[in-house]
């Protein structure tokens, strides 16, 4: 028999608190969750991501009430799914607003999540004890990509159709089981009604459930260890007599009023797009997607939506030439292993494994390795907490040349993204190859470079200027 609960609240709240930890949760997560007082602009994106998630779920529910995942043709020869989107745009009261909020929301989600992840990279928010927060976050990013990919098929336009065709065909590049795997994913030999219906199921229920669960885990893990801050200083190291961090302030009201300003600012930009430029020059809504899906007409240039393009560039970079680069990287790895101090048996086994791997680089189709590289570009992020061995967390106290390297990383990511929008070209191909090598080198070589150079002294307390 559990001990009798004692709660200090009375009345209705007391009745609830005796049965559900309402006041306890309110205190733990809001009024007595102490966050560092030196958050800067970069710290808006976490709460904004939650706002956009809510926005996507709510607008999504209303879209589902009128959308029909049906690839058959209506009396005018238009696929029912495509026509149902236009029905929402024209005949459902404020349907256009709901739809544009959802389509703009998808792009906004990625803008916010990319900035949120970059914040984590700059301030070392993934370092101990926050590794799990980062891993949950990377999984959220992966799920978000899946969610966006499945959702993009639903309007059943030319880009929806051929984008899905290209990506699902990638599964066909998996050695041995590839073709069967692609049929299994599609539910048909081409992208068709079966594909549309299963993608709908994944988009509206399977992935959102996982996403919401992961977001909860992300926040619970965050509140367990406490937020990092732009100085990368642990505020829990300096507490007052009551055990409250000296540099911490209650999340509510200080960061709630703070985040409301961020939300207002975000909504201004968001609504400017929704009401005045919902296509955003063809980047948020691709022009070709206003043409109904036609399995017999391949568009001259198939480009994914902007948020996938950096990874799409990496996929396209992997040609026969790139597999030689991968063999070279494997050789360097083997060499490093041979020169290490590990026992002879481990070294020999490791080198043997690398040699086998290097052979598969050349034996299997380059397209398959393209898929592996594209996936690996996201997977490598998961290992960041252990790759970064810098003595400081925040970029503020890193050597200048490391700051330059981080800047190059961002520029490189942007260029890869830009190239992914364009049709393939020799110069683009050459850059993508170099850019992909840089992207992976940046992370994979972190154990070698992140602890080199002259670090600036980290202060004991956070740097804060009163407003």
């Amino acid at each position, binding site marked *: 028999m559990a001990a009798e609960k004692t709660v200090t609240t009375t009345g209705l709240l007391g009745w609830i608190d005796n049965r559900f930890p309402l006041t306890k949760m309110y205190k733990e997560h809001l009024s007595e969750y102490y966050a560092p007082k030196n958050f800067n602009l970069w710290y808006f994106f976490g709460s904004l991501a939650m706002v956009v998630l809510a926005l996507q779920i709510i607008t999504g529910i209303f879209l589902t009430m009128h959308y029909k995942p049906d690839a058959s043709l209506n009396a005018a020869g238009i696929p029912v799914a495509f026509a149902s989107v236009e029905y929402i745009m*024209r005949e459902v009261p404020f349907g256009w607003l709901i739809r544009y909020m959802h389509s703009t929301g998808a792009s906004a989600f990625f803008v916010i999540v990319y900035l949120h992840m970059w914040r984590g990279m700059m301030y070392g928010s993934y370092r101990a004890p926050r590794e799990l927060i980062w891993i949950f976050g990377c999984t959220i990013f992966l799920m978000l990509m899946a969610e966006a990919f499945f959702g993009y098929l639903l309007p059943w336009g030319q880009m929806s159709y051929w984008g899905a065709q290209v990506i699902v065909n990638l599964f066909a590049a998996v050695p041995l089981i590839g073709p069967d795997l692609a049929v299994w994913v599609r539910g048909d030999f081409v992208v068709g009604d079966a594909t549309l219906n299963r993608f709908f199921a994944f988009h509206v229920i399977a992935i959102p459930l996982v996403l919401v669960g992961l977001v909860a885990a992300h926040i619970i893990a965050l509140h367990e260890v406490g937020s990092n801050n732009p100085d990368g200083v642990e505020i829990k190291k300096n507490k007052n007599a009551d055990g409250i961090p000296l540099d911490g302030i209650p999340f509510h009201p200080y960061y709630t009023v703070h985040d409301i300003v961020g939300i207002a600012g975000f909504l201004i930009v968001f609504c400017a797009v929704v009401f005045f430029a919902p296509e955003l020059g063809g980047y948020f809504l691709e022009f070709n997607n206003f043409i109904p899906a036609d399995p017999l007409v391949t568009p001259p240039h198939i480009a994914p939506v902007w948020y996938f393009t950096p990874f799409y560039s990496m996929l396209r970079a992997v040609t026969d030439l790139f597999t030689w680069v991968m063999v070279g990287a494997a050789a360097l790895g083997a060499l490093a292993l041979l020169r290490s101090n590990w026992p002879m048996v481990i070294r020999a086994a490791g080198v043997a494994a690398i040699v086998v791997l290097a052979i598969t680089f050349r034996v299997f189709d380059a397209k398959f390795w393209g898929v592996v590289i594209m996936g690996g570009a996201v997977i490598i992020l998961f290992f960041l907490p252990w790759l970064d061995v810098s003595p400081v967390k925040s970029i503020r106290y890193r050597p200048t040349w490391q700051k330059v390297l981080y800047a190059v990383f961002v*520029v490189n990511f942007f260029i890869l993204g830009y190239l992914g929008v364009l049709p393939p070209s020799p110069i683009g191909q050459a850059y993508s190859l170099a850019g992909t090598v840089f992207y992976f080198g940046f992370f994979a070589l972190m154990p070698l470079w992140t602890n080199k150079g002259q670090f600036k002294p980290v202060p004991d307390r956070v740097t804060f200027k009163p407003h």
Partner: protein
Amino acid sequence: MKTLILSKVVMRSAAYSIFFVCAVAAIGIATVSSAMAASGPVALDSVPQAKLSDKAAMQNGAKTFMSYCLGCHGVSAMRYSRLSDIGMNEEQIKALLPEGKKTGDYIRTSISRNDAKEWFGAAPPDLSLTARARSSHSGTGTDWVYTFLRTYVEDPSRPTGWNNKTYPGVGMPHVLWEMQKTKSPAEFDSAVGDLAAFLNYVAEPAQFTRKTFGIVVLAFLAVFFVIAWRLNKAYWKKIR
């Protein structure tokens, strides 16, 4: 210690050289892509902008559409009754209706898709979204429609006797040729502009209300932002 300094120098020079490579690549890409954009097919003429919000022009375009285009092309996402959006009353809409149609019907063509495929090589596309779908970096889809309908040339080598400079090898003959022959070039351009304005409206009927709402919403958000900002300031005054 020596290796540390060496690796620092190597790392630093590597970082700067990568940065340099990125900068060069960015400039190269920008040059190539702008050259690619410039070498597009036909430069598009811009549709007279005033027509895009002129209800009389759109109504005129609707009439042209019903008499010249509807034989082969529908705008099947729209009902006839929605023509009230562009200022037509019920009598005027009824006057436009083809035989046996009601105002609540969708604006569909009566041509059979299979017949059309046999005659023209491809079923004529539905035009509900053409003014959006034909958008590109050379101009809006409406500009494309406006240019396309004015760039027909006689070409005896084509089955229809017509070809198009904007859309070489097009299956559609020059449906407006008689209009082009009887009208002055300026009058013809104006009539095509009206038709393009109609298709522009049809592609997104919400486009006008959208912008009106947008102004109200942004005005509200601007006020809300100021209030939120002051509220935040008031709270944070206590934080030292």
